[in-house]
């Protein structure tokens, strides 16, 4: 006992900082591996992809020049670091589309130029969905857990179970039918232009944001409920009850300080899920975001664009999870107050 304690005191770094650094390190490693996978996606392309991109009419010299532009003549590791360096400095290469059989890149646009405005749109849509869904889901989840097995709980439960079973596009079309086709409250297409005003944007984005909200709320509410029920089953909650604490005291004083970690984890997990959900929803509503760009790029096998979009999605996903981890760490009394 004494020995262990001395060893821990001997460490120079506070456990919270040490654990956070570990998680950050792990996050970086993951990003690195993701970048490797994305990079190698060019390698896996079949040999004749130059022709596929440039068309049958392309001259062999043009194809060779194109390969050279992609750096396929350089050794693998050199190419990787060049590519990675490019990504880090905002240069993601040029799109394959727009290349004529001449192979010149004059008409093909840099990936970053395609991505930047669409990323802004996607972030706008995701934030709108998040702003509505996070408070709503937490409220529903916590109340359902507290009034467990009540009619309210069962209704919310059955409704959310149904919602999570629906494919996103089904929810989207139902909303379009209800709120657009018949009632004309919202437009069914969300093809916002770059110079649209803020409230116009909100109006145009309403249906896609609502679709995402419905899907996310269902997931988030169920997870919140499970986390709270799990917490309320702890012996120290029963002890608080036996000490005569009132229901509000039990929740605010005894449950809440221990609930941050599970709740933040649920939120982060669902925001990360939002990142994925956005793809389908953007396609349904023809919303000019990263998701739609990526799907188009996948269909045309425009690899640089796919790489760029995927890197953005993966990084967001990893960062959100990292954020949740860090919150769990800094609210954990065992780490905050080491022996």
């Amino acid at each position: 006992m004494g020995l262990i304690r001395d060893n821990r005191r001997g460490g120079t770094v506070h456990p919270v900082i040490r654990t956070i650094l570990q998680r950050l390190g792990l996050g970086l490693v993951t990003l690195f591996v993701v970048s490797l996978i994305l990079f190698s996606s060019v390698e896996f392309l079949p040999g004749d992809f130059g022709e596929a991109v440039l068309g049958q009419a392309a001259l062999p010299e043009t194809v060779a020049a194109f390969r050279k532009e992609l750096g396929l003549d350089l050794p693998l590791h050199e190419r990787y670091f060049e590519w990675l360096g490019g990504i880090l400095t905002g240069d993601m290469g040029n799109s394959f589309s727009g290349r004529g059989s001449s192979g010149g890149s004059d008409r093909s646009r840099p990936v970053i130029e395609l991505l930047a405005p669409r990323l802004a749109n996607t972030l706008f849509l995701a934030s709108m969905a998040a702003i509505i869904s996070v408070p709503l889901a937490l409220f529903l989840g916590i109340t359902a857990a507290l009034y467990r097995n009540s009619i309210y709980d069962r209704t919310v439960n059955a409704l959310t179970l149904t919602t999570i079973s629906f494919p996103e596009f089904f929810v989207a079309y139902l909303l379009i039918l209800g709120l657009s086709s018949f009632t004309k409250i919202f437009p069914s297409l969300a093809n916002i232009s770059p110079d649209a005003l803020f409230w116009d944007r909100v109006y145009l984005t309403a249906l896609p944001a609502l679709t995402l909200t419905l899907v996310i709320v269902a997931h988030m509410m169920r997870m919140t409920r499970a986390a709270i029920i799990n917490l309320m089953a702890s012996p120290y909650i029963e002890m608080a009850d036996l000490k005569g604490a009132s229901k509000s005291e039990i929740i605010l004083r005894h449950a809440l300080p221990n609930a941050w970690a599970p709740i933040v984890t649920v939120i982060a997990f669902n925001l990360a899920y939002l990142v994925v959900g956005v793809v389908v929803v953007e396609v349904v509503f023809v919303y000019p975001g990263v998701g739609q760009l990526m799907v188009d790029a996948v269909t045309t096998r425009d690899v640089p664009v796919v790489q760029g979009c995927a890197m953005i999605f993966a990084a967001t996903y990893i960062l959100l999870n990292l954020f949740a981890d860090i919150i769990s760490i800094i609210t954990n009394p065992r780490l905050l107050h080491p022996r």
Partner: protein
Amino acid sequence: MSNENNGKKGDILLDMRDIVIDGYSDDRWHEIVKGVDITLRRGEVMGLIGESGAGKSTLGLAAMGYARAGCRITSGSIMFDGEDLLAKTEEERRALRGTRIAYVAQSAAASFNPAHQLIEQTVESTVRRGTKSEAEAKADARKLYRDLQLPNPDTIGDRYPHQVSGGQLQRVMTAMAMSPRPDLIIFDEPTTALDVTTQVEVLASMKRIVEHFNTAAIYITHDLAVVAQMADSIKVLRYGETIEDAETRKMLDNPEKEYTRSLWSVRSIDKEEERSGDIILKVDHVDASYTGSAKVLDNVSIEVPRGHTVAIVGESGSGKSTAARAITGLLPPSKGQVLFNGKALPPALKERSVDQLQKIQMIYQMADTAMNPRHTVRDIIGRPLEFYLGLKGRARDDRLMELVEMIELNESFIDRYPAELSGGQKQRICIARALAANPELIICDEVTSALDQIVQKGILELLLRLQRELNLTYIFITHDIATVKAISDQIVVMLQGRVVEQGMKSEILSPPYPEYTELLLSSVPEMDPDWLTGLLKARSEGASATNR
């Protein structure tokens, strides 16, 4: 001292009449407490004793007007200080809890909120009640910590639950219960999770403080010797009904019911020890450690004579179970060797031959987890018959029947699943599984400690009979001295991975003792209400004698 208790000693504080409590399981309600009465006077301590399933914890919580989720109080009356708790609203009952009736739980580590400092939790109820300011309550809490002999009483309250040891937490919880100066405290198995040497200290602190404040208490436990130290009177419960009810001394001296006597039945077995020079197993200067950590066995040597029993005794963390793992090859020794019938066994399990494995069998503490819940008794006992002896079909079934009869069960058990057996029957099936291999040595790892006393006695007698009939050798790992007396010929005492003492039972269990053995033996509660007082007196005299 008990200035807030507006009654005097001897008045009836708690009067529970004909309490019936239902519990929900298997899709229906079952009665788990069936019409029990409790009468408790101010300043009196009542022991509620019973084995698993007796309904004692449920009854204890009912004294607070509280029923756990999945339980409900269906009838009866609970008069606390002249007021009917069941007639009150939940809010009114809540106002009593934590202020006039307090609770001390079994698992202190889980029952403290990990997010708050201990002192905050200690004074929570008192401050809510408003009889003391927060500063006063905290000053009082520090005083209580001191009274309960906690180390660093002025600062220990600033710590968080995970920073404090189990025995200390249990005392902090007692201080938490005492802080609002309740009329009644419910102690729910508060020392069950502690080692014996820690248990003595915690018991002593609790006894002292309850007497000091003249608080009434209900002390719930399954250990009669423990409750005898704390309680003025004892109520024995079984399956939710009262078996016997008497003043402590009277119950110990002259129990009326056979069942009550059976509560200390293990103590009635005493094996004549026998000497033998024929060594079947020799653990020779063995060191072992789990990867990367400190040694859990340090130069351990043990000799086991054929046809006899060696008991390995020690508290949690002493390395007694690790010794078994080293013998069986689950944890290969890093140094030294294990000799069986004079020949060295390969250190790792994988390198041992089927023949070597067959000769050494093991029986576990928790029969529940030692049997696959998806196998029937036939599969469980039949597998070693098939695996080691190649028995099939009729021959296998015949041997199976023999074994089942050997463990005093019958044919009707053969097609049951473990869930359809009682605790004692499960352990018997595990014994039969070990016997099926025709072993020479059986390692018994705390095989009786999860069982009720009367069942323990049955198992121990069975093991003794089998030893006589089959000339079996046992290594018996336990922390319970009564069990050691009942079964062993030789004793090995372990502490922190080392053997502190070994020898014949009579030598170990009689003075002069080495220091640790003395501490261990003297800490085991005896069936004598004066034992704790006497022990503390002797220890304080001993301490002052050495200080001089």
